[in-house]
């Protein structure tokens, strides 16, 4: 009896429990799957709770650190982390289903359903907090660029230096046999040959030679390309340019006659004619072809008069010009050389610029940019041409006719210049006179002694009177002459 009684009670208890469960499952489809094991309840419950009302859980997921979950439920699920939910999954306690137990649990499935309503913005970790250098690829690029620039600077500088040294080594003997002083930077007390080039820049080298018949001195300037500047290197890839050697020989006044003459490539001559003061004034015609003298077509001639051209173009000169035409940019002989035209803001300068008898040579180094030290040997014959030209300039003299023409030309140029500047010069003279008067007056005023003052004033008055009289005399004379 008792056994039967206890068995009934147990059955009842079980029944009530299972009934409760079945209540939940009434609406469910998965009743068949209900399994009488510990986890079965949880499994089904998990699926069930997905479809349950999601309004109970509100999750705000702004950042990973904190997921605030607002629940009606107990404190045990305050954090609502997924980890907590996970641990709950592994809970081996077979407790009866309790809403509150699974509230944290519901976060995960609930939030996935609430995705449709509140899109989760997954924010990237800020790049600088990432431990990867890849995000700084632009900076790395910049630094690489800078390193490339520095490398190019060093390489370019060294190359220019080697080219300069190669040039000097090739030409040293010739120069030393012709000039006493080879290499001077102007700083030493004594005039002794330094025997080396002056480095003005990373791409410009100077050499001053002096102490020879006929000329005061010769300044050689090696104008290399800016190999040390990467931008320039890149620009040159588009448009090839050559290194240049510029030689300027300053002649003694007695050793050169008066003429202006130039020969060179057509392009160079057109440019020089525009830029150079003397060429623009004395050689007004367009560059003429030198075919008459046997020059190649690439070269043209600018000359003050035909006689000069005839005199200059002797066999040896023609030989030089023909054989080395590709290396010659321009050759310019002038007794009126004053450099390029000066542009002044106030109009014309008040005085004609100083002129010097000069021979100028511009040579292109072969290679068109891709030069090697051994190319410098190709320039040695050109230096011979320079020396020959110096001697020739001394020997060449214009005949009487030529001299007259030359003098006329120079007078004409001077007159033109004076006419242009007449007004300015008048104004300048006027202002100078006014200055003088003012200075006088100042002096008189500052004189403390009244006697002296009076005397100075009288002297000034007398001077003024004299000037007026002189002017009147002049006017009278002009009138008489006119009559």
């Amino acid at each position, binding site marked *: 009896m008792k056994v039967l009684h206890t068995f009934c009670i147990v059955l009842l208890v079980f029944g009530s429990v299972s009934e409760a469960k079945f209540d939940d499952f009434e609406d469910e489809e998965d009743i068949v799957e209900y399994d009488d094991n510990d986890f079965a309840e949880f499994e089904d419950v998990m699926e069930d709770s997905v479809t349950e009302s999601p309004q109970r859980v509100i999750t705000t997921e702004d950042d990973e650190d904190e997921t605030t979950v607002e629940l009606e439920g107990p404190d045990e699920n305050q954090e609502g982390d997924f980890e907590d939910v996970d641990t709950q999954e592994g809970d081996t306690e077979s407790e009866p289903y309790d809403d509150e137990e699974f509230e944290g649990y519901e976060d995960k499935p609930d939030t996935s359903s609430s995705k449709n309503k509140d899109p989760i913005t997954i924010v990237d970790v*800020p*790049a*600088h907090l990432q431990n990867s250098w890849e*995000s*700084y*690829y*632009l*900076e790395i690029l*910049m630094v690489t*660029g*800078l390193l490339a*620039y*520095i490398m190019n*600077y060093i390489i370019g500088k060294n190359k220019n230096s080697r080219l300069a040294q190669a040039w000097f080594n090739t030409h040293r003997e*010739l120069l030393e*046999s*012709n*000039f*006493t*002083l080879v290499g*001077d*930077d*102007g700083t030493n007390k004594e*005039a002794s040959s330094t025997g080396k080039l002056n*480095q*003005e*820049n*990373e791409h410009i080298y100077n050499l*001053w030679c*002096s*102490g*020879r*018949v006929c000329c*005061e*001195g010769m*300044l050689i300037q090696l104008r290399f390309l*800016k190999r*040390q*500047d*990467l*931008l*320039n290197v890149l620009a040159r890839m588009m448009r090839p340019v050559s290194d240049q050697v510029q030689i300027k020989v300053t002649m003694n006044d007695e050793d050169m006659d008066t003429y202006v003459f130039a020969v060179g490539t057509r392009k160079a001559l057109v440019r020089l004619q525009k830029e150079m003061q003397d060429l623009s004034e004395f050689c007004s015609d367009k560059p003429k072809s030198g075919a008459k003298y046997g020059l190649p077509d690439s070269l043209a001639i600018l000359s003050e008069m035909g006689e000069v051209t005839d005199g200059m173009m002797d066999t040896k000169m023609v030989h030089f010009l023909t054989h080395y035409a590709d290396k010659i940019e321009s050759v310019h002989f002038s007794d009126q050389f004053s450099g390029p035209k000066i542009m002044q803001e106030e109009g014309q300068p008040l005085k004609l610029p100083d002129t010097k008898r000069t021979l100028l040579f511009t040579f292109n180094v072969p290679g068109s940019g891709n030069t090697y030290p051994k190319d410098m040997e190709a320039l040695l014959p050109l230096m*011979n041409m320079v*020396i*020959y030209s110096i*001697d020739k300039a001394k020997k060449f003299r214009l005949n009487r006719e030529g001299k007259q023409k030359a003098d006329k030309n120079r007078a004409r140029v001077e007159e033109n210049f004076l006419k242009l500047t007449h007004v300015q010069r008048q104004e300048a003279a006027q202002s100078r006179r006014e200055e003088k008067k003012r200075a006088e007056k100042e002096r008189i005023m500052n004189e403390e002694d009244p006697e002296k003052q009076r005397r100075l004033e009288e002297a000034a008055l007398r001077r003024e009177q004299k000037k007026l009289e002189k002017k009147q005399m002049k006017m009278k004379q002009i009138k008489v002459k006119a009559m």
Partner: protein
Amino acid sequence: MSTNNMSDPRRPNKVLRYKPPPSEGNPALDDPTPDYMNLLGMIFSMCGLMLKLKWCAWVAVYCSFISFANSRSSEDTKQMMSSFMLSISAVVMSYLQNPQPMTPPW
């Protein structure tokens, strides 16, 4: 080669000392690159500092390098150094204020 093998063309008594050509603004006329680059470098570094633009600061560094490479011998090294320091400081300040890497405009 001398024109006359008998006599030496050299004249030790006619030696003239080298006089550096008077530079009355000629250097600036010949090649204004270093001056322009210097100015650009300063402008870019000020922009980079004030407007907190990283690319400005980097361009300023490049400008000061280019200005240095193209500089003439008569150029003041103090000027070069100051523009260089300014551009480096612009870069450093931009990164201190905002350590994020540069974003390309594309």
